[in-house]
């Protein structure tokens, strides 16, 4: 019992994920700044932002809307991100959970932050938030099928094993899944799925700072917004970690840990570069992109897997 609480709150749970996610968020902002020939924020900037929102700022409740749902939604987002991160990171750190079928649980838990953003923004009663949440719903519908197909393809490639432990063990005994044609296709689709899940720039229509002025987060201030920031930091860490676990060999011992850190940084670097070099697309374009092109890529990968490539 005590060890489970330690897993959930300290390592590899909430605290570790928050610190790692905050540092990755700094990495993302720093790379963005360097791409734009700027100097960028200091190392601890994400933590300053978080503690400022949590400790200093006042919470304002919207007059029209449901305050309870509005306040609980960010907590639900943090909870979903932490639970999903726990199921991803425990196998990654070679701690066996003994749970067969955790890939499907990860899939469901990873949708929880998006759903809680939708709930919170609709509960705020702000028209711009309503537009943002309707866009978020459409975005979720677009990318979830692709994401599920990617997980299905990985399950198929690992020989019908539904748990992350075995997927990582299979890759470690053979070649990593990304070392094959189908693996490369899955990686491309996974990177775009993550981009949409994180709401980074080609797919940031839900928050769309220039047209909806932060859209789904528009009414949040103070501690609830700090919780949303925390959920975003955690998601920025666990989604690349999931890709590393599913396709790139996971994390080994000794020098393998350093390699895993470099792999996660590489995936985040890729996300940041995509974010900095592309404009925001319309929601219809995003749906078409996922429904047609990304699904096509993943289906091709599945067919290739069936032929053993």
């Amino acid at each position, binding site marked *: 019992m005590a060890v489970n609480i330690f897993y959930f709150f300290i390592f590899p749970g909430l605290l570790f994920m928050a610190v790692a996610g905050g540092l990755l968020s700094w990495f993302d902002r720093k790379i963005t700044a360097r791409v734009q020939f700027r100097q960028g924020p200091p190392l601890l900037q994400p933590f300053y932002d978080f503690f400022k929102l949590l*400790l200093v*700022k006042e919470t304002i409740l919207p007059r029209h809307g449901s305050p309870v749902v509005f306040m609980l939604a960010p907590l639900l987002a943090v909870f979903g991100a932490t639970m999903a991160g726990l199921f991803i990171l425990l196998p990654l750190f070679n701690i066996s959970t003994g749970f067969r079928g955790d890939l499907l649980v990860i899939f469901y838990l990873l949708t929880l932050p998006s759903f809680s953003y939708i709930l919170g923004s609709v509960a705020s009663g702000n028209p711009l938030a309503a537009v943002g949440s309707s866009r978020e719903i459409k975005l979720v519908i677009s990318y979830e099928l692709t994401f599920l197909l990617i997980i299905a393809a990985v399950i198929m490639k690992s020989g019908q094993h539904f748990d992350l432990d075995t997927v990582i063990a299979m890759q470690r005994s053979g070649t990593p899944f990304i070392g094959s044609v189908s693996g490369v296709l899955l990686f491309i689709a996974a990177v775009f799925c993550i981009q949409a899940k994180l709401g980074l720039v080609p797919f940031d229509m839900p928050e769309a*700072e220039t047209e909806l002025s932060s859209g789904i987060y528009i009414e949040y201030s103070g501690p609830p917004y700090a919780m949303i920031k925390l959920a975003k930091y955690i998601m920025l860490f666990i989604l690349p970690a999931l890709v590393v676990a599913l396709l790139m060999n996971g994390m080994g011992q000794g020098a393998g840990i350093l390699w895993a850190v470099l792999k996660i940084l590489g995936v985040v670097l890729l996300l940041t570069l995509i974010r900095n070099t592309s404009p925001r697309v319309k929601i219809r374009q995003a749906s078409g992109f996922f429904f047609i092109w990304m699904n096509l890529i993943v289906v091709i990968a599945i067919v290739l897997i069936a032929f053993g490539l």
Partner: protein
Amino acid sequence: MGFKDFCFRKSLWVFHFGGASCNNCDIEILDCLTPRHDLERFGILLVGSIRHADVLLVNGSINRRDRDRLLELYHQAPKPLLVVAIGACGCTGGIFAEGNTFAGPVDTIIPVDAYIPGCPPKPEAIIAGIARLAGKKP
């Protein structure tokens, strides 16, 4: 200075309110975020929603219609909030001070924490003002 103040000073998020401005101050404010002046190295970000703001930048002459909007924004902002009046119009009214529709300089409507005069102030002056502001207790 405690931990809270320190975090607040290191992460000032700015919301920009342009009154009946001639757009020169707006352009100079945006200049501060460009690669040459890069305010993000002090943790300063431009945010889209007043609910996320720590600093309210007001520029331009405030006329009778702007006055209500400005008051509404001030009341909607979460509260340790710093207000900065930028430009001659924001500080004193400038050449519009005697105009028929002019509704008073910013500090007659809401309390102001820092004044950055100039028509328009240079980006260096804005950065100096913000840096002085970051040293002030909220």
